Each structure stands twice: as structure tokens, then as C-alpha cells.
């Protein structure tokens, strides 16, 4: 019995270089259009947000992970399952704040920035800001408001790429029934 849909549970192999090129083309076009690094960062964040709100359903549908009980569990799921599933890398979770509401994801290799070098006139550009938007959008759909930003970036001379995530609050409006 043949199936109509492609079984995309095993990820279709695609050339990651095409992905890097596509993302690069996107960022350079945004730079040409807006000519202002801050504005480009904002746009990347917005685009990432739109991706995140859709990606979360795909993630939940494929991984069948239940609701996380606390922020530490969320951090583990993001690093070990989500990043692995979508970017093929597993960042480490470190630098927990004393209150347990802030942590860092350290990525050794960021697939978005293969072969990329930032020129001097774009020193404030956060090249991978799309990732921040994705994380923010995805967590908002599961009722968590978070603040995500890049603390260190290999493109700007640091040794590792560090994403800092801070839990702001639980979103109480429109909670799905049964989750109070």
C-alpha cells in the first residue's frame, strides 16, 4: 500500500551548504534593503518569530514530548532534542543564574555561519539573530515568555557562540484547558 505523503519523519537529506547559502543570501539582501544593522537584527528576529510559532507544532508532533515542569527541563529539551533535530548540533547548557531563570546555550559549531566572515562595517550585525526569534516564538506558543539574545558570537571574535535565554513569565491568557 503506497502512501501519498512523503514520510518526512526521517529528515530528507538536503545539502547543508544550500541552507547556508540561502540564509546568507537572506541576510545580505536584508542588509541591502535596510542599510542599518539594528533594523536588520530586528527583521531577523521577526522572521525567526514567525518560523518559531510554526516550528513548535512540528517539534511537538514529531517528538511527542510532554509539557516541561520547570525551566531546567525546558533548557534540556531545547538543547538535547530541538537543536539536534533541526540543526544537527547539541549545544551545552551552562551558566545558570542563581534564581534558575536564566541560562546559556554554548554552541561549538553554528551551521548558519559556515564559511561566513563579518566585514568591519557590519560590526553590530547579529548574523544568527533568526535563531533568537525562533526560540522566542516557539516558547511563546507553549505559554512561556522568554528573552533570547546572543552573548558571544564567533563571527565577532569570541571563542564560542553563546545564546543567553531568560525566563520572563508564564503567559496566562488563553491557557489551554487543563493546564492551570
Amino acid at each position: 500500500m503506497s502512501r501519498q505523503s512523503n514520510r518526512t519523519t526521517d529528515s530528507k537529506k538536503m545539502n547543508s551548504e544550500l541552507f547556508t547559502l540561502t540564509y546568507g543570501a537572506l541576510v545580505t539582501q536584508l542588509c541591502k534593503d535596510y542599510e542599518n544593522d539594528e533594523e536588520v537584527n530586528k527583521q531577523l528576529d521577526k522572521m525567526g518569530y514567525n518560523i518559531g510559532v510554526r516550528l513548535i507544532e512540528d517539534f511537538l508532533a514529531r517528538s511527542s514530548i510532554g509539557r516541561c515542569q520547570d525551566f531546567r527541563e525546558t533548557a534540556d529539551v531545547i538543547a538535547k532534542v530541538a537543536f539536534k533535530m533541526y540543526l544537527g548540533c547539541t549545544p551545552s547548557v551552562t551558566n545558570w543564574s542563581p534564581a534558575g531563570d536564566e541560562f546559556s546555550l554554548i554552541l561549538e559549531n553554528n551551521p548558519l555561519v559556515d564559511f561566513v566572515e563579518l566585514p568591519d562595517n557590519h560590526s553590530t550585525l547579529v548574523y544568527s539573530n533568526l535563531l533568537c526569534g525562533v526560540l522566542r516564538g516557539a516558547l511563546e506558543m507553549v505559554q512561556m515568555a522568554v528573552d533570547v539574545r546572543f552573548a558571544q558570537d564567533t563571527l565577532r571574535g569570541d571563542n564560542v557562540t553563546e545564546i543567553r535565554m531568560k525566563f520572563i513569565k508564564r503567559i496566562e491568557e488563553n491557557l489551554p484547558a487543563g493546564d492551570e
Partner: protein
Amino acid sequence: MVIYSVYVVNKAGGLIYQYDNYVPRAEAEKTFSYPLDLVLKHHDEKVVVSFGQRDGIRVGHAVLSINGVDVVGKNTAEGKDTLEYLNDPANYPVSIRFGRARLSSNEKLMLASMFHSLFAIGSQLSPDVGSSGIEMLETDVFKLHCFQTLTGIKFIVLADPRQSGIDALLRKIYEIYSDFALKNPFYSLEMPIRCELFDQNLKGSLEIAEKAGNFGAGS
């Protein structure tokens, strides 16, 4: 073993997708002569049989078409009131089709939002904290299965009570939604789903579930 319908309800309780897989089996078309031996009355914008039962026509059945032309609510296709039309001996002999009236899309919308509220009541009635909402509703004719995602979308499937594997089917529909609706950049979240690929794949998985009886084994 049949799966009757699929409903998808968004976070706010609005129906964003609906698919009916069944054909009402109880429909009867007969030619009548004056006077009509069934008593008809208006009910909810339709004309239904209130008394009189014969040849497969039961009380509660609605007038579906007259002389082969579908009726529009209480009126015939030409706009005349159906009861008046059938009281006029000049219009006989007439061929009328009776059957169980299908739900209109407005009715489905209303029922979906009502279910959304009842779902919440399910978790509020719980004696213990942390109960889910309504997961299954059973009648003697069908079973309703509901799956709510962590993001608040509900997938509802109405199936034959003996049909198994509905849980796996609900998860599969969630996957199809995340693929063909969400990955379509022209589909806006929370809006009615009008994606052909979604329809096709949904129908395909319903067929597989019906045939297998236990969807998910070996997939």
C-alpha cells in the same frame, strides 16, 4: 468500521477545519399524491416530518429535495415556502426526498465552540488538580475522541465505537497539520485551513486508519 468526521478547533474555540467522511445512509425518495399522509412542520429553518412514518421515512427526517431539486432552508429552490407548496393539490404528484438533515456549517461552528467550552469544564470538574480536558465522548452510535496539543489546538475525530487506533490517528493528523498547513507560508495561524495538500493527506490517513483498524502498527 468508519471514521465519520474530523474537526480542528483553534486556541480561541473557533472551528478551522471540518471534514465529513460519511454518507447518510437513511435517505428515501418517494412519489406522493395529494393529500400527503405525513405531517410536516417547520423546525430550525428546515421542514421536518413531525408525524407519520413509512417506507424508510422517519419522524425527524427533513425534506432534502423536491422533484430532484434541493430545497433551500424552509423554501423550495424557487423561493416558495415548502409547506405551502405541498399543501397545493395542483403541484402533485410530487417526488420528495427525505433524510437526516446534515449539519450546516454555522451549526458546526457553534457546536465546535460549545465543545471547546465543555472541554474546559471537563478539567474543572476534576476532583484532582492537573486533569486534562474531555478526551473521549461516547454515545451508542459514535465515539468522539479529542486531542489537545500543548499549544491549545484541538483535533477531534468522530468514529465508529469499535474503531481502534484513533489515538495514533490523532497524532498523525497533528503531524499532517504541522506539515501541510503550518509549513505553507500562505496559511495564517488560527485561520480556517484551506490547503489542498492538507485535505489530500488527511483523507489518505483516514483511509489507512479505516482499513488497518489499528493505525500505526508497522508504519
